[in-house]
Structures are given as C-alpha cells and as structure tokens.
C-alpha cells in the first residue's frame, strides 16, 4: 500500500488530468515506423505520455524528486525495488535482494554496475547517504524511516560493502514499502546542497532509463540512456510528456494517437475509446483497493451490528458497479480483501464466493424488523425507541463515480424504509467531516494492497481514528482489542503463516462485525494504444498495476512492428 502510494506520487501524476496540447502529433507521425537501432527486435521511436506535473509555468523547472512538484517523478531517479500491488511480488531494481533479520533489521543488497547519468557508479554509500539525508531533513522522509509513523523508527542506516543495513528500534515491517520506493540520489550531487527539498535540481543526475533531452517550459522530451543498467529492456527511444489532459481532451488525443497511455477517469472507456478501434485501443482496469460505505459507528443506529448487517445486504453492489464504473470493476467482497487474488489469505470457512454478499432486500428487511427498527406511519423506519430515523449521506460532489454509487445505495436503502438524505459537498469538506466525525455515512477508500497492516488494518485499528488535524484510515471509528492486537502483530511479523493468521482476524471481523460495507474494487486505470508499442499489462498478464508502475511497464514495452 505504502509503496503504491509513493510510486503513485510520480506515476499517477503523469497519468492524471488537466489540459494538454496538440504539439506532439508531428513527432508521432514522423516517427511511426520502427527504426531498428541495436535494441533487438526494433525500437519504438517515440511515445507520448501526459505530463506528470502541470508544466505551464515556463522556466520554473525542478527535477528534484523531493520537491513538491518534480518535473518528472518516474524517469530520472529510481527506487530500490518495486512491489506489484496485484500479486505482491517484489521486483529487484537498484537493490537485487532484501532480507529481514528479525523484524527490526533490514538488509538490502545493492546492484553492481548501475551508473548515474554523469557516468559515476551507484554504490551502497549513495543509498545510505540518501536515507541519512532523510534523517537530517524530515521533509524528505516520505518513508517515515526516522519517525514512528509505520512501525518503530530507525536508529541507523549504514553501508556495509554492497549492502545497506537498516537497524530499527523495534518491529518495523510496515516501513518496507516506503523504503523500497524512496528515490535514490547521488552523494556527489546532493551532498552539498543543504536542505534537499529546497534545492532546485536543473541538471538531474539519476540512475533512470531516460535523461532530459529538452524542455521548453511546457513540453518535456526525454531521451533513452544507452548506458542505463538495463538498457536492453528499454525499447523506447524518446518520451514526450506534454500537458495534463482532462478526460475529454485525453479521449480525443488517445483516439487520434497523440497520446499513448492515460490513467485518468474516462467515463465508459470501452464504448468511448475501445470500440472506435478495438485492434489498437485497449483498456485494463486493475483492482486497486476497495471503495466502501463507511457508517459512523459512534452514532446510533450504526453502533448496532444488526443494523450494519442489514445495510450490507441492502446495498445493490452490482447496480452500483454498473453505474459507477460501467462494469469495468467487480463487486467487492465483504472480507475487505481483493478476491480472488487474496483468497488464500481467508480463514475457514470463508471463500471468495461466500464473502461476496448478495443484494437481498428481504433479508435486510427481516434483520431490521428483528432488531427493532419498525416502520412508522410514513413508511420510514424508526429508531428502536420509536424516534424518527434519518440518515445524512455525505457525498463527494464532483466525483462522478462516487455520486453514482451514492445514488444506487440511496435508492436501495429507501426501499428498505430508511430515510436517507444525500448531502453533496466538495471532497475537501467531506474530508473535514472525516476529521470531526460529524457525519452519518459516506463513501470511503479502504486500502487493500500487500501491506495488510496499513491497508485493511489501518481502516480497523483504534489508533487510526482521524484526528482534528489528520485524516487517518479508520474513518468509521471501529474499535476492537482483538483487531488492534492482530494489526500490531502484522507490523512485527515477517513470517507468512503469522501474517495469514492475523489477516484472518481482520477478514473475520469484516464478515461478522460489518465495520464498513465494501461496494466495489477501486480501479487502477490503464487506457492505452498498441499502434506504436505493445507489452502493456493486461488482465491475462497482470505483471504491474497500470496506475503506479509505469517504470516497470516501460521495461516490458516493445515495438508493435
């Protein structure tokens, strides 16, 4: 989960939103064919991607991966390793291997033969330097190595030969995803710049597959490095990043070939994009976590587990999925785990099949009747004591898929006799309600990646209640000592059997306590063309999450010819 979030910082930025321009058409046209140039079976002359940042402000360029808006987060500086959030496999990158020695000591083996753009060699010292820099400047510590945010803080990070050793003051397993995602900079360049987050990096010196060709304040051209450590795998000679198109512009650009890949939200992409040329136009949405209905458990009647169970059966998840994602995604399992990918993590007697609750109004109605929520004269159900029961549904205005889900849920609940009223407000103010706890129910994201402690665990752990100043995962404010114990154990455990047992506690809690009601798997979107390059991840070959692993994807692309 953490890895994803950090990688997303770069990749998703490139794939998200905002207006772009027509400029790249000429390049695309002129470079259409595969000019073979030593890379094996033909090179891709150029690929057009959306800009990772809004680059409209002229010469204010900064390639520093630790600035608020690096001109590119993906192509110049590289992480230690990459975890595929779909199958949880860890791909070696600048580090070839890692090993936990206990839950408080982590050792990476650093790859040999990796060169920075200036020709100097990457060593374990550069890696240790990067992490020690994050100690000196907490603003750069996006992996929380030196504080107790995800597990215990580090006491030292040292280079020992080809290895880098992290020593922590206690169990720190959840820090792994953040650490492997941290971008490694060279001591030579960043050793003398003072506070790195305030350093304007105009001559980037990274280990990445591309280097800056030209930038005119708007259009960033990156050219392939022939001395890249896995140059053999990079078949794209030039990347053009220009503009951040919004959905409408992106659709037009994708259809005309001015854009080769996009990860933003295009409504009904199969109809709008794929159907116009099914041979070249493709779309694959991977499950990226869970979108769930979160009631406020501090309020009646949501503090009643029977009421929540009825809610779970009263959501028409199939209908919500159809309307919110045009059936691009699947109905989510109540277990809080992505099925069938994580079926092996479920305890007896649960299966992928029986954890996906059907839409059953009759059952939901019986549950409500039995629990004492009787229908009043006006056809609406009342509280147990007979007082009127109204539910304010906080909806993020402008997030069209959330709005569609909310409409479907509201319709179902009203059929049950629940008086639901939607209150639409900007996502910011819904976040504020998360902090203050002043809401009845809302739609919320539940992390469901490879780090169970900070994914599903964070949505259930008592310590993760949002505070006045911070939005945290446990928006619904669920609290159970057994769950807290399991999350704690997950944070300190590297043993697979123990992980499964503790994840089982979380899944069982989801199935019996209904703290939140999963609706559908949130999408990681991949919308792409195959006229220039092929090898994108697909449902049949899900080697990477399309939204946050574009660097990994780049090593799989090759010429379409």
């Amino acid at each position, binding site marked *: 989960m953490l890895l994803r979030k950090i990688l*997303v910082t770069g990749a998703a930025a490139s794939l998200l939103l905002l*207006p772009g321009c027509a400029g790249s058409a000429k390049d695309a046209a002129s470079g259409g064919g595969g000019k073979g140039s030593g890379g094996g079976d033909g090179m891709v002359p150029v690929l057009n991607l959306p800009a990772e940042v809004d680059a409209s402000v002229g010469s204010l360029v*900064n390639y520093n991966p630790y600035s608020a808006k690096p001109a590119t987060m993906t192509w110049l500086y590289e992480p230690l390793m990459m975890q595929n959030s779909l199958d949880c496999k860890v791909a070696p990158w600048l580090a070839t291997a890692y090993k936990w020695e206990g839950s408080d000591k982590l050792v990476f083996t650093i790859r040999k033969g990796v060169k920075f753009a200036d020709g100097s060699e990457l060593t374990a010292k550069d890696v240790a330097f990067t992490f020690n820099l994050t100690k000196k400047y907490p603003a750069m510590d996006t992996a929380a190595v030196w504080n107790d945010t995800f597990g215990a803080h580090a006491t030292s990070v040292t280079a020992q030969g080809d290895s880098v050793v992290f020593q922590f003051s206690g169990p720190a397993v959840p820090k792994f995803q953040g650490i492997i995602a941290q971008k490694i900079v060279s001591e030579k360049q960043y050793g003398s710049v003072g506070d790195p987050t305030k350093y304007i990096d105009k001559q980037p010196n990274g280990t990445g597959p591309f280097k800056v060709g030209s930038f*005119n304040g708007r259009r960033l051209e990156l050219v392939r490095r022939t001395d890249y450590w896995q140059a053999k795998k990079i078949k794209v000679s030039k990347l053009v990043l220009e503009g951040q198109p919004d959905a409408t512009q992106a659709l037009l650009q994708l259809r005309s070939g001015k854009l080769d890949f996009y990860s933003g939200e295009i409504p009904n992409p199969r109809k709008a994009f794929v159907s116009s040329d099914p041979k070249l136009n493709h779309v694959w949405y991977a499950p990226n976590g869970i979108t769930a209905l979160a009631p406020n458990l501090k309020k009646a009647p949501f503090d009643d587990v029977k009421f929540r169970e009825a809610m779970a059966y009263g959501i028409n998840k199939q209908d919500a999925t159809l309307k919110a994602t045009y059936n691009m995604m699947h109905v989510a399992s109540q277990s809080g785990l992505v099925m069938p990918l994580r079926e092996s993590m479920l305890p007896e007697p649960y299966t992928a099949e029986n954890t996906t609750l059907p839409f059953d109004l009759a059952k939901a109605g019986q549950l409500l009747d039995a629990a004492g929520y009787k229908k009043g004269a006006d056809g609406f159900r009342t509280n147990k004591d007979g007082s009127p029961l109204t539910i304010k549904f906080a909806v993020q205005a402008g997030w069209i898929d959330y709005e569609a889900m909310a409409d479907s849920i509201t319709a179902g609940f009203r059929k049950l006799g629940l008086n639901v009223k939607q209150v639409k407000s900007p996502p910011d103010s819904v976040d504020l309600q998360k902090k203050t706890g002043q809401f009845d129910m809302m739609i919320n994201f539940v992390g469901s990646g490879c780090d169970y402690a900070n994914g599903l665990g964070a949505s259930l752990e008592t310590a993760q209640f949002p505070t006045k100043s911070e939005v945290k995962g446990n928006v619904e404010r669920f609290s159970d000592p057994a769950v807290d114990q399991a999350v704690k154990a997950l944070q300190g455990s590297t043993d697979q059997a123990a992980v499964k047992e503790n994840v089982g506690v979380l899944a069982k809690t989801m199935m019996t306590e209904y703290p939140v009601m999963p609706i559908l798997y949130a999408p990681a979107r991949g919308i792409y063309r195959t006229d220039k390059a092929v090898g994108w991840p697909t449902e049949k070959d899900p080697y990477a999450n399309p939204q946050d692993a574009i660097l990994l994807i780049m090593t799989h692309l090759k010429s379409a010819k």
Partner: protein
Amino acid sequence: MKYFLRKIGFFLLTLWAVITLNFLIPRLQPGDPAELMVQKLAGKDAQLNLAQVRAMRAMLGTPHGSLWSQYWEYMGHLAHGDFGLSYTYFPYKVTDVIGQGLWWTLVLVACTQILSFVIGVMLGAYAAWRRNSRFDSIVTLGSTFVGTLQPFWIALLLLYVFAYSLGWFPTSGGYSQSTPGWNLGFLYDAVSHAALPAVALMIVTPIGWILGMRNTMIMNLGEDYIRLAKAKGLPDRTVALRYAARNALLPSVTGFALALGGLLGGAILVETAFDYPGLGRLMGEAVANKDYPLLQTLMLLTTTGVLIANLIADLLYGVLDPRARRAER
C-alpha cells in the same frame, strides 16, 4: 489638504482590511494543503499516506499555531516584502511564480482591454451620433444581449467550435513546440494560442464602453456648445469628434484606469478554460491547491491594484474638480 489626507487615510484603512481578509479567507476553507497535495498526487482511489503528509507538512512549513500568531507572522513577513514560497511550485518563490505568469496576462489582458476600449468607445460614439438609426438600435440591442453572456461560457463555446470541431486553433496552453524568446516561431505559436482566449475576452468587454460612451455622448449632444458649433456651420465630423466625443470621453478614461486595476478578475475563468499560463490560471490553481502564499500574493496584487487606481482617480478628481473637494465637507 484635509480632503487628500482623508482619501489617503481611507486608502490605508481599506488596504489593511484587504490584507486581513486575504489572510483569513483561505484559512476559513476546510482542508489541509499538505493532505491535499499528497492526495492529489495519489489520486482519489488511494489511501492517504501519513508519512508523506508529514513530510509534506515539514517541507511546506504549513501554518501551525493559533490564528493570531499566524496573523502576526504573516504581517511581519509582508512588512519585509517577503511573500514566501509557493506550495505548488515549491521551492520557488511566490514572486518568481508570479513573474512567470505576469507577462502572459499583461499581454493578453492589456491588449484585449485596450482594444475593447478603443472599439467600444468608437462604436458608442458613432451610435450616439447616429441616434435612433438602424446602426444604433443594432449596436444597443446587440450589446444588451451579448452583455448578459459569461466570458467563461463563450470560452467553452469557442473551444468546442474552433479548437475541437474545426481544429483551427490549439486547445490549451500559451505555446507548445517552440522555445520562448524573440523568434518568429515562438511569436506565431504564442499568437495562435492567444487568439481564442483573446476573442473570448473581446466579445464581452467592449459592451460597457459602448453603452457608457453612447449615453454620455447623447447627453453632451444636447448641450449648448454643440448647438453653437453646429450653428457656426462646422462640419459634422468636427462637431462629433472634436466637440462631443472629446468631452464624453473624460468619464470613460477614469473608468478605464479603474478597469486596468481590476483586469485580473475577468481573466481568471477564461485563462482557466484555455489553460493559458497567466496569472488568472495561477489564481485558479492556487485556490485548488490551497497554495496560501501564492493565493494571498495574487489577491493582494489585484486588490491593491484596484485600490491604487481608485486612489489616483480620487486624488485627480480633487485636483481637477474643486466641486469634489467642496462636496466632501
């Protein structure tokens, strides 16, 4: 003297109020800039990463402490001309960011404003001179109708027709392929990108000038000195231009000074629609990102612009027209 002191005192008081509102308004909105930036990068279907939020907060040095202490800090920095670092373009200074956008807006908006003024005044004067002619009714009625349209709406319409459907103009940005500088390629690039936003602004802005000029001119045409000029047998053109129009122009000139002060306001939506790299779009971006330093500086720039234009107009009136001073007593 008392008149001038009072005007200057009033100016300072308003300026203080503006600065204070500038400080307060962004902070009254819900949301945290650091959370917002991290969430934006991650996308909405992602869990907020606390480690990143904490790092981001440490980086931006986002406001903490009581509102009161923040206010004093803010006033202190302002007094030293320190506008801070933009959150969105961190670690660039707010002044650098504004410096980048300023030229685009100045050229686009100043050109359209001046053109609008010239065209509007000329049309208005001619309509007044040919009062009740067909030309007059078309201009007057047309203006009243077009004046009700929103520039933003017009911008979207232009985008759809000329950029998407016909493909004559680029859809967004200030330039694309060329390198900024004094070369033909860039100028062509910049002009083709500026064309649609300029048209979007030009359709509505002349309206005010047309109607204002027409009305003052009609009033002046009824004055005795016009009748005298006509009686002397001067040619129509001389009477219209040198006698009537010249006098009718005076109030419009004052209005023009004020309009220049507030020119940014009208450009925000149009620049946002075209993603034009000027101050208006920056302002939109600053609001969306809760970029307090950038937002405050831009608002300060616009509001003080209007205030100063007002002050100059007030002072000039005091000098030029003794009646203004007397009326204040």
